[in-house]
């Protein structure tokens, strides 16, 4: 009985948001739904085309599709376990309502049941997001009957239960060793490293070689070597073996593996309940201990005992110093820099791996064209990084925003100090992307200067858009800063940043083409062409200035009316 009561606040909260949210909530929900649908359609198209392509490969096609399915299940399982551990840490140990719940006559079994259901629901969204279009693509490609879709539900449900039960069990044991806060930090860091590793592995496998006939023989050999079922003790293998007979006739029965998964799910829940009943009380009391920041011990300048015996600094200096310390003392923040580093390496690796010599266009033309388009791509990368770090910069003040509101500090100064804080790193990143990719492409002298200059000015606009829009749509109550950019304001920021980048590219495209062709053909430019080029670049400058000034003023204006 208590289980439903414990789950009720979630449901009521959702109902109240729908009931009281008004138009803004509807717009937000509509936008998110549209993005999700777009995402589904994208994934579906990719998988459908890949599977159709596999179907065309004689003898080997089904094996490739089977291997892909097993990879999908294996990836889901790994991600689900990780996500379940992180969610279980929150639902069982860190959730704010636990203090109240522990003071009520709720038994441990009831608490387990309620929190277990919450953990499954919170961690399984990813399978819904990625799984639905993938499994639909399989169903349509192999003309799966109703039995396939029913079998899919019958496999996915226990699959999610196994992952959740395993995640909860591991969490219970981990908290015995470390305080929950520290466990979450370490796991977060590990998950980032895991993400980086997977990213590198995937990229350096060079999947583009699949469509390259020259490399195909080695891929065939690779898949032949993998033709036997792998890792027979993993639920991902059982799930694949249960689903595949519903798509293609095989000698193995789907029901056998379905029964196997259900029994394993039941056993996993029993183990999880047992471990929870034995270890939870001790783990809960340990979870109340606080951890110390990891990075603080690595960087001397951040160590807790130093840095204050000095004369005062300016307000901007104080704000930037505070932002620097809070960023590097928060493991969930600085660890994401590793992802950016991986992104830069792979970004540049892509340029080094471009098969320009095999293209039909002249190499020098293609190199410079790619270098010019690289301005937009680098802009996009910077905008995406801005969404993660710059947009939430104002929201990062969180519940402490009252300090800014009551101190003798103008909001303009606050926002410009945040602007200055993020501008430097983004400039360095943008210039590294532009200069290094140009060097790898061996572009002309003109392009070697143009791309970094364009990106240099663009970074000002992207940073200002992030700070300004982040100030206009703050979320001071967000528990996780990564979630701040997923709201309506974040979406608006991305749209505006993309439009700004596109506008700069469009304005520069004409004059760059004129200049480049004149140089290639050795024709001097006339006065009207110089006027056209000068006018276009002047317009680019105006757009850049507007991209800095307008969002910053808008952000300051909107934030000054904030009442929270």
């Amino acid at each position, binding site marked *: 009985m208590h289980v439903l009561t414990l789950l009720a606040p979630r449901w009521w909260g959702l109902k109240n948001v729908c009931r009281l949210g008004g138009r803004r909530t509807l717009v937000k929900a509509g936008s998110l739904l549209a993005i999700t649908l777009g995402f589904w359609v994208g994934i579906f198209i990719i998988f459908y085309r890949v599977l159709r392509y596999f179907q065309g490969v004689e003898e080997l096609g089904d094996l490739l599709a089977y291997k892909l399915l097993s990879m999908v299940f294996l990836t889901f399982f790994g991600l689900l376990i990780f996500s379940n551990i992180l969610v279980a840490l929150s639902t069982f140990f860190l959730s704010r309502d636990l203090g109240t719940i522990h003071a009520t006559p709720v038994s441990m079994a009831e608490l387990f049941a309620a929190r277990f259901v919450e953990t499954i629901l919170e961690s399984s969204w990813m399978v819904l997001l990625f799984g639905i279009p993938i499994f639909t693509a399989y169903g349509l490609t192999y003309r799966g009957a109703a039995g396939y879709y029913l079998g899919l539900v019958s496999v996915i449900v226990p699959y999610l239960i196994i992952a959740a039960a395993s995640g909860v069990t591991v969490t219970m044991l981990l908290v015995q060793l470390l305080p929950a806060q520290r466990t979450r930090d370490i796991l977060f860091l590990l998950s980032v490293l895991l993400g980086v590793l997977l990213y590198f592995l995937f990229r350096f496998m060079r999947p583009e070689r699949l469509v390259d006939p020259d490399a195909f023989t080695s891929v065939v050999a690779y898949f032949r070597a993998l033709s036997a079922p792998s890792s027979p003790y993993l639920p991902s293998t059982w799930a694949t073996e249960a689903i595949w007979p519903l798509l293609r006739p095989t000698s193995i029965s789907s029901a056998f593996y379905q029964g196997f998964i259900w029994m394993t799910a039941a056993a996993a829940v029993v183990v999880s309940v047992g471990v929870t009943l034995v270890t939870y009380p001790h783990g809960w009391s340990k979870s109340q201990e606080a951890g110390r920041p990891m990075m603080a011990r690595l960087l001397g300048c951040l160590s*807790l005992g130093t840095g*204050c015996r000095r004369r*005062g600094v300016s307000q901007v200096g104080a704000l930037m110093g505070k932002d620097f*310390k809070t960023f590097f003392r*928060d493991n969930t923040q600085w660890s994401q820099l590793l992802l950016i580093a991986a992104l830069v390496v792979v970004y540049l690796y892509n340029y080094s791996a471009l098969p320009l010599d095999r293209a039909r266009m002249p190499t020098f033309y293609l190199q410079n064209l790619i270098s010019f388009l690289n301005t937009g791509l680098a802009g996009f990368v910077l905008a995406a990084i801005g969404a993660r770090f710059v947009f939430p910069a104002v929201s990062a003040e969180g519940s402490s925003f*009252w300090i800014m509101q009551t101190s003798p500090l103008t909001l303009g100064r606050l926002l410009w100090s945040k602007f200055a804080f993020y501008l430097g790193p983004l400039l360095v990143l943008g210039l590294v992307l532009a200069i290094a990719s140009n060097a790898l492409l061996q572009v002309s002298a003109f392009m070697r200067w143009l791309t970094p200059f364009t990106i240099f000015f663009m970074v000002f606009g992207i940073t200002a858009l992030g700070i300004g829009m982040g100030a206009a749509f703050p979320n001071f109550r967000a528990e996780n800063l990564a979630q701040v950019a997923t709201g309506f304001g974040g979406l608006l920021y991305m749209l505006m940043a993309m439009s700004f980048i596109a506008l700069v590219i469009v304005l520069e495209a004409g004059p760059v083409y004129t200049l480049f062709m004149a140089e290639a053909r050795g024709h001097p430019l006339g006065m009207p062409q110089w006027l056209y080029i000068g006018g276009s670049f002047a317009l680019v400058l105006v757009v850049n200035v507007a991209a800095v000034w307008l969002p910053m003023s808008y952000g300051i204006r909107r934030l000054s*009316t904030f*009442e929270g």
Partner: protein
Amino acid sequence: MIHVENLTKRFQQVRAVDEVTFHVAPGEIYGFLGPNGAGKTTTIKMLAGVLRPTAGRIVIDGLDLEKEPIEVKRRVGFIPDRPFLYEKLTGLEFMSFMADLYRLNGQSRDERIQRFLELFELAEWARELVGSYSHGMRQRLIMSAALLHGPRALIVDEPMVGLDPRGARLVKSIFKKLKRSGLTVFMSTHTLAIAEELCDRIGIIHKGRLLVEGTTAELRELAGQEDSPLESVFLRLTGAGPDGEEEIDFL
């Protein structure tokens, strides 16, 4: 020192604060009482510059808060009821940060920080992260930060929440000492004994309107309860029954 005229704050259809007018003289401690939801915190947030009034005027130390917010904030210290701070800064770093925000310079800066940390018994914890502080320690840290720049007026929302008896006694002594040196204090509290002990005058707000104000003796006279404790006077003036006997009969 603090002049509030026809202060009004509307949240959509609700008038949380409705044409409130009062004045607090220099060196005076003014207690602001009222039941839950009466408009105390909304008034305090407007005085601190966190919320903008819908109508009315706030003048502190001769400066209009609407026209010169930065100058006013430079002269005011604010202590909120809930001590939200930067969890990833140490107590010492937080004090240093606040000193910089208020542009405290010179050699006395670090001395002042140290003296306030010692005064509020936080020196031992100064190099620990605020995230590991107890509620009472955070409250004491906020108080020391609010006094660090030597404000001329102090605006306090529930000063004793989360403080142990030792901390509460310390705060009372500090308020009394600061009052003698000319500091003006505007504070809201539910602890009527503290209001009676500390405040020169008390204003009672109910449903957004300032019902009465005066010394405790004047309030007793207004309520017609000359010999009653302040609690009875408060309940009488805010329209609650003397002890709620009828409502709790079912217990």
